[in-house]
């Protein structure tokens, strides 16, 4: 069926942010099992420590490259070109950036294009994981994504967004209801992924919030503690029973289609139709992509 023609989805359920300045956290990051490791040479770097962070980034990147995780570099939009020049590493999958304007994204795109050219990389290989960390970015996220075809995911920086509201994180009120919901819709619009955790009243448990997030259509999240990685990987993966059900739906519907039917019944009498086949195919594609990602990590780690 059409499944073969659809490209395998990106699997970045857990994106662990690693500060090159925190050398004690390097080993834990490398063995965390994160789908992506984000070396942060921008967001968490104190003023004046940029040079040191870049120097240490060049040390930590080869170490992290052995993990089999996607390697990303968190860059500041205003210094992207210089950072890439100083920190180029052949295994990088792309960059993470907190941008506010389409111009910033276009500038970053140009810097990545230049880098691909000099490094002999295929055009368009380097990706952008876009972080929404301000109200302006949250409200204009569609224009940001439209600014470059390299953008593969929209990520909510909850603390950054809460800073804009001027209020600490709540377990009672869903403060980022709007940008989260909007990011899911915008992601669909541009055929990319939305990455964030869900709001679950009364808890900040990583597994629970990731599990609910997956059901909302989110596909991963940034994290800052290696201990959260297993929960994110699990929460953003479909449970075995859901995958099995999807296989049954797919098999039953394919048989139904062969017989010229648009709707059939599963054993037990549950009626399924073409819309459910589409959903089942999506679940199976996601499960297969995760399996491939896990194999890649096991092979490299």
């Amino acid at each position, binding site marked *: 069926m059409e499944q073969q023609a659809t490209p395998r989805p990106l699997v970045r359920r857990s994106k662990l*942010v690693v*500060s090159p*300045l*925190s050398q004690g956290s390097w080993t834990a990051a490398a063995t965390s099992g994160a789908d992506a490791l984000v070396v*942060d040479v*921008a*967001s*968490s*770097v*104190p003023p004046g*420590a940029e040079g040191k962070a870049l120097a240490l980034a060049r040390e930590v990147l080869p170490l992290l490259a052995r993990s089999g995780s996607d390697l990303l570099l968190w860059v500041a939009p205003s210094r992207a070109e210089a950072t890439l020049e100083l920190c180029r590493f052949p295994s990088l999958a792309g960059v993470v950036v*907190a941008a506010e304007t389409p111009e910033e994204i276009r500038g970053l795109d140009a810097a990545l294009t230049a880098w691909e050219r000099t490094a002999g990389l295929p055009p368009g290989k380097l990706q952008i994981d876009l972080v929404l*960390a*301000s*109200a*302006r970015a*949250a*409200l204009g996220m569609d224009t940001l994504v439209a600014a470059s075809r390299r953008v593969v995911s929209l990520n909510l*920086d*909850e*603390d*950054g*967004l*809460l*800073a*804009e*509201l*001027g*209020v*600490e994180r*709540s377990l*009672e*009120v*869903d*403060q*980022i*209801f*709007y*940008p989260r*919901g909007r990011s899911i819709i915008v992601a669909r619009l541009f055929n990319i992924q939305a990455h964030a955790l869900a709001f679950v009243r009364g808890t900040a448990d990583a597994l629970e919030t990731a599990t609910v997030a997956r059901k909302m259509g989110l596909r991963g999240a940034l994290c*800052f503690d290696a201990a959260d990685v297993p929960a994110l990987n699990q929460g953003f993966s479909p449970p075995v029973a859901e995958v099995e059900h999807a296989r049954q739906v797919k098999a039953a519907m394919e048989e139904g289609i062969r017989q010229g039917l648009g709707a059939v019944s599963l054993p037990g009498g549950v009626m399924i139709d073409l819309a459910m086949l589409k959903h089942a195919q999506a679940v199976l594609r996601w499960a297969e992509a995760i399996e491939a990602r896990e194999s890649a990590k096991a092979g490299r780690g």
Partner: protein
Amino acid sequence: MAMGDMRVRSALVVAGDAFQQVKEGLNWSPDALCLDLDWLVHPSRRAQARDLAWAAISATSHSRSLAMARIGLQEAEEDLKAVVWPGLAAVVVPDLEGPEAVRDLDQRIAALERERQLPAGTVKLIPFLSTGRGLWSARDIATASPRVTAIALGMGDLLYEMTGTHEAAPYITGPVPRFPVPEYNWSRLGFIAAAAGVHLLGLLGATVAPGHARGHNLERAVNLARQAGFRGAFTLHQEGVAACNRGFAVPVETLKAAGETAEMAHQGLPVHGGKLRLARALLAQAEAARSVGQEGGRT
């Protein structure tokens, strides 16, 4: 007193034709006293309310409270003439549905400022979003004029929406439909206000008769509203003023944690940018509150 960077935690709404309410209300120490010429005044007494406005604004401006006036959009010209006097900090306008109306009000206020020799831009604007169209256009409204210093969500009542209890006087029969997804509105307006650099205000205890409000319910609503991004609320009650003044402050424990985060950064340790910005925003809020004599934190 001019608004400047003043945070308005509580804005006590009083009927414009009842000067006694102004005098009484000022004793409750609201951050602002909002003289209402519109909803709380019978049409037959509107002219009287306009005549009293100057005295009420003058009295308020000589207190520790800011003077605000809520006018009617349909009668904006006459209402503005009655309230734009020295001492008026802001005009609160319900039913605004687009940026054109904001710009029109801006020009009318500017003309009155010139005519009455008030410094240009002194009188601020607070759109009170009370229709679906107004909510939809909130971002355009918030950015339509530099006079806009806050936007207020005038639909529903924080007391009942926030606490999830049944409303004492449900208003579902009027021309304004209740939105079934308040969290969407709170969150959206919070980010719109933040992007525009203005405050988000709510409406507290509007459907509770004076004397019947339960303090702890009001406080719970304020606590939740603050977490949702509201910085203050309009209220009609003494208990509402007290709840807002206490509740729209950064909790002491939160400030302590924010201080620790800021200190880590100060020591040159890596702290995620968003977390550091949040800590600094909370500390700045508390500092701003202290600088104007407001409570700096609550337990």
